[in-house]
């Protein structure tokens, strides 16, 4: 039994944490949140130089050819630092779609550029408010041309290409679209977390190439979302841990009624409950990471478990971090809101909490029926 990351993986985490402490303090997050730049280009370049954008990309396509455990520890560190870069879109989704379904030509065209940070990819999925179901995907593809619109596409305004879920007759297929092509219009959206940019993308007879076989869209999305769910869970675990630390540190320092507020049981117990959520999320994350890295048959169940647990933990810790900080927690100057914003952004990435809860129970039921 060894249910922890290896020393090498921990070393990689330490290396990432040091790097991010230096290059991605909260002032860097705020620069994106408050400024005109959609993401931190210097940080993105730096992460690429460390090899972090191509961890699981095979060496023949310009990556490091390492495993998912390494990617999990990096995702966690990026989550702690609230890194304002398109990592989740480009690495957790676009890269994974290419690895899962890309032709050799598509892989050769994009993977080396994704690994080097020269290209950013994303996944365009939702078209309106509500759960995405096969019915709600109305953007249509015919003769390798796309017509329709996608909304709230993460990093949609900065990505070089998008994997797009499109209707092809009665089925859903995936297409790869160069977003600089004619017929593509992008509009940056105001969101709850401007440190991670989102856009509406309109496609008017835009040229596209199929990614994977026709009609395979839903299967591929489900497969890639399971992988991304584990990675996102680690991003959330990093955020949960950081907000717990912030709340703890503030509770030790802030005095009220002649005592540090951390000496009041009301505060201690709130922090203990945050610790419990964060710990359960980490343990469930380890299970997901194990399943992802070994290609275990349990991955669908493990991914949904990790995702539900991590979403609950980060939202719980981020909101109570503000509560522990009191009025100061609601100021723009304190960093609490940055985490609160990110926790609520990540909770709906890849499908919302209630959808993942539903998915988890469906999968447990399927396994029970099979058993």
């Amino acid at each position, binding site marked *: *039994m*060894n*249910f*922890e*990351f*290896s020393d090498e993986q921990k070393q990689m985490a330490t290396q990432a944490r040091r790097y991010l402490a230096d290059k991605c303090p909260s002032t860097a997050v705020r620069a994106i949140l408050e400024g005109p730049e959609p993401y931190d280009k210097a940080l993105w370049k730096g992460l690429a130089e460390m090899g972090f954008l191509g961890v699981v990309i095979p060496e023949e396509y310009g990556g490091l050819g390492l495993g998912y*455990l390494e990617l999990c520890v990096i995702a966690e560190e990026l989550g702690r630092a609230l890194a304002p870069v398109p990592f989740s879109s480009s690495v957790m989704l676009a890269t994974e779609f290419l690895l899962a379904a890309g032709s050799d030509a598509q892989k050769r065209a994009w993977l080396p550029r994704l690994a080097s940070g020269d290209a950013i990819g994303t996944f365009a999925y939702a078209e309106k408010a509500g759960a995405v179901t096969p019915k709600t995907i109305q953007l249509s593809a015919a003769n390798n041309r796309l017509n329709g619109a996608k909304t709230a596409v993460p990093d949609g305004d900065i990505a070089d290409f998008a994997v797009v879920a499109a209707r092809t007759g009665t089925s859903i297929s995936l297409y790869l679209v160069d977003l600089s092509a004619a017929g593509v219009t992008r509009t940056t959206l105001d969101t709850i977390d401007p440190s991670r940019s989102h856009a509406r993308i309109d496609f008017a007879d835009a040229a596209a190439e199929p990614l994977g076989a026709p009609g395979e869209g839903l299967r591929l999305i489900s497969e890639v979302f399971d992988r991304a769910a584990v990675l996102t869970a680690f991003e959330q675990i990093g955020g949960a841990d950081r907000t*717990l630390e912030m709340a*703890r540190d503030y*509770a*030790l320092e802030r005095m009220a009624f002649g*005592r*540090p507020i*951390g*000496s009041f*049981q009301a*505060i*201690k*117990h709130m*922090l*203990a*409950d945050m*610790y*419990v959520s964060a*710990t*359960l*999320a*980490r*343990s*469930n994350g*380890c*299970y997901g*990471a*194990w399943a992802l*890295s*070994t290609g275990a048959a349990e991955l669908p169940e493990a991914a949904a*478990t990790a995702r*539900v*647990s991590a979403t*609950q933990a980060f939202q719980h810790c981020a909101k109570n971090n503000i509560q522990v900080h009191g009025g100061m927690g609601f100021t723009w100057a304190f960093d609490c809101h940055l985490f609160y914003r990110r926790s609520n952004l990540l909770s709906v990435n890849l499908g919302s909490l*209630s959808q*993942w*809860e*539903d998915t*988890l*129970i*469906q999968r*447990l*039921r399927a396994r*029970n029926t099979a058993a």
Partner: protein
Amino acid sequence: MNFDDTPQEAAFRAEVRAWIDANAPTHLLEGLRSSGFGGLNLEGADPITLSKNWQKKKAEAGWACLHWPKEYGGRGATPIERVIWGQEEGPYGALGGVFIIGHGMCGPTMMAFAAEEHKRRYLPPLAAGEEIWCQLFSEPAGGSDLAGLRTRAEPASDGSGDWIINGQKIWTSGAHYSDYGILITRTDPTVPKHKGMTMFFLDMHSPGIEIRPIKQANGQSGFNEVYFTDVRIPDGQRLGAVGDGWKVSLTTLMNERLSIGSGMSTGFPELFDLCCRIETQNGLAVDDPAVRSKLATWAVRTTGLKYTGFRALSALSRGEIPGPENSIGKLVAGPTMQEIAMFAEDLQGQAGVISDPDIAAANGRFQAMLMRSPATRVEGGTDEILRNIIAERVLGLPADIRVDKDVPFNMIPTSGRA
């Protein structure tokens, strides 16, 4: 990251499995599997006798108290081997319930503080299940505030050096079938409370001990009140120095945490099974989105505890000692079981009130959980004490302000309406 045994662990597991296959009381298996909360389903047979028989058999083959040194009746096994044994023993482990306190807490305390002759006399029969031990700690005035205990130990007036005990303990599991116990007392009420306590072990058949079972809120009786009237204990049965009882008790309580098992039950598998069979107004419960959302929350708490346990085992197999972070097990499992029991009752509608195991869903397990779970949230550290432990000892927050900390024990107010 993997779930695999090392080659040594695999060899050990194979040896354990072969022995259990050849020796376990297989005729009890069905009953043990279907046992509910607070009692073993052994079809009328005396559970103490069956437990002692199984323990004796294990001891004779060297499988009792695996982590204890051989000279005291153990096997000198590693912590991870002890865990493997527990996994393989499976349902038969329920037969060890009456020995948990003796093996998990009394034994290690004796090992740390008793005289060598006493260790050799008492530990092997404890390991072999020939003698059962209990732990006399809680008192009516000392629960969460254990150091508020009032049971007095005073030097005998006859100059024998013996101690005379007067007072009352409460919530003593198994006192009525125990042969020996470890007892914490107050020897000096004129000093602050943590400084005036002393630990002993004693024969539970000593004159002056009266044991009264407590009828619990769920109707069962697993605990006792124990009254001491001029009970005499030789000084040689003192554990640690006079006045060091608090320090000794911390050793006992730390060992409680070392008893990592397969994790505490939350009732989730039973609930999930129920939801696959019972209907809500929207059809099968497991297909109802409102039900699914609740199930998912309890599912991830249950797996989260399981894998937190696995992470603790990983630390154990690296030679690290489990710390206060393991307090989360009961803190999560207790309230979750209560929530699950209440929801399972809700799903059963009007019939949810039925507790008769022959009629109720899941043989009445949910009704039993409903009535037992309030105790889980209190016994062995309340939810609130566990949160304090996590806050103070894991997160490093300040200890609670204790207004009685430096006050002589006999000057501490005893009524809130003074």
